[in-house]
């Protein structure tokens, strides 16, 4: 029953109509943010035009807080450059420190899924065949899973 205080009209709308939810076929990059403690995860798909995020979608195994966060987060990054996206994500992660623990984990999964997609993109651009990259959430630091 987390997030009750946060249950505003906008929140309800994101629960009813999550933005950018669903797989992107033939995405340019795919990243996973994974919670190793309960098998919850977020997968982010990027479609790029040069270095601009033309489309960003997500899917999740998680609670409504994860879905709402994914919906808001991906909406923020559409049309941004990868660099801007990375900087927004770092700021987002820094702000999570003050959030309740469960919301922190949800937010962290979303943010790290995006960062994992950036790693995957870098690997693909350097010629590595890699379907997706995974980052595991672990409190304050990021742990590589693969």
């Amino acid at each position, binding site marked *: *029953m987390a997030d*009750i205080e946060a249950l505003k*009209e906008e929140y*309800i709308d994101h629960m*009813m109509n999550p933005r950018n*939810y669903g797989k992107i076929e033939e995405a340019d990059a795919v990243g996973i943010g994974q919670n190793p403690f309960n098998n919850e995860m977020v997968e982010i798909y990027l479609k790029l035009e040069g270095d601009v995020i033309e489309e960003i979608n997500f*899917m999740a*195994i998680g609670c*409504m807080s994860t879905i709402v966060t994914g919906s808001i987060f991906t909406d923020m990054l559409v049309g941004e450059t990868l660099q801007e996206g990375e900087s927004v994500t770092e700021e987002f992660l820094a702000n999570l420190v003050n959030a309740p623990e469960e919301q922190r984990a949800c937010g962290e999964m979303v943010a790290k899924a995006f960062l994992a997609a950036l790693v995957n993109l870098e690997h693909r651009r350097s010629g590595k065949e890699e379907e997706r990259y995974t980052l595991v959430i672990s409190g304050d630091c990021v742990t590589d899973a693969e």
Partner: protein
Amino acid sequence: MQSSDTLFQQKHELWLALLFGSFSLPDEEIADLLYDFAMIEYRHLNWLGGRLAAEGKAFDYEKDEIDYRAETTHALFAKLKLQIEMMGRAYPDPEDAMYARFRSDEDYFVRKLESLMADPQADAEITAYDKHRTLPGYTLDKTQTDALTLFLFEESYKEYELILVYTYANFFADSKRLSNIFIDLIYESHFHLKSFARMMEKMGILTVPRTIMERVYKFEDLEQFLIDGIKEEEGAKEECVKLAEMVGHDALRDFFFFINNQENYHIALMEQALDFLRSRA
């Protein structure tokens, strides 16, 4: 003609359109009729999936946006009729008994929808997704309303997920014992989904659950899935009890304890499946 997996997706989408269309209706008698149609579509989906699995063909639960929203019931019927007719054009073999059955069922659905569309008494405003968030007959404060809202979103998704997961597992079940357990669990979840979705309709927050990720139902370790599932059921029970205590209304409390007690049996069924798997390992 479409490929089998596209046909499966279209059937899945039609099932959901009829199901959530039925949940959105204010008239319970018409809602029940459409719910029956939706459950027949679910059986079609099951038969189609069973055939694809037997033929070794790949399929999944990907879906596009489900078009079940309308301002009035007549507008909804027109929308559903169109989707059913499109489905009918997608079946491959007119001589095949299964597709002939699908066509025959859906021709009947179309005739019933047409007769409802011709009946002015069957038209009404739909308020199932206007977010008014009040439950007729109950006075809930903000905390109670928010708790109920979150619970309904979480659990309606969960029940949809369970229906799909056990349906998929049942396509590949290699024993009657396991299959019977899966079927019991599927129909329990159908009932829970209906109960929660009807409540969501009354509160104006009805929505089709999001697409479930492939890795949720295409798992390799059924034993681990059941172990995790039992933990999740225990978590769901806790949420149900918390909510029952929080809502502070006898009838609602009674309903959530009733659901909670049903979860006990789900856990027992999953434990039976687990024991069975371990006994033959």
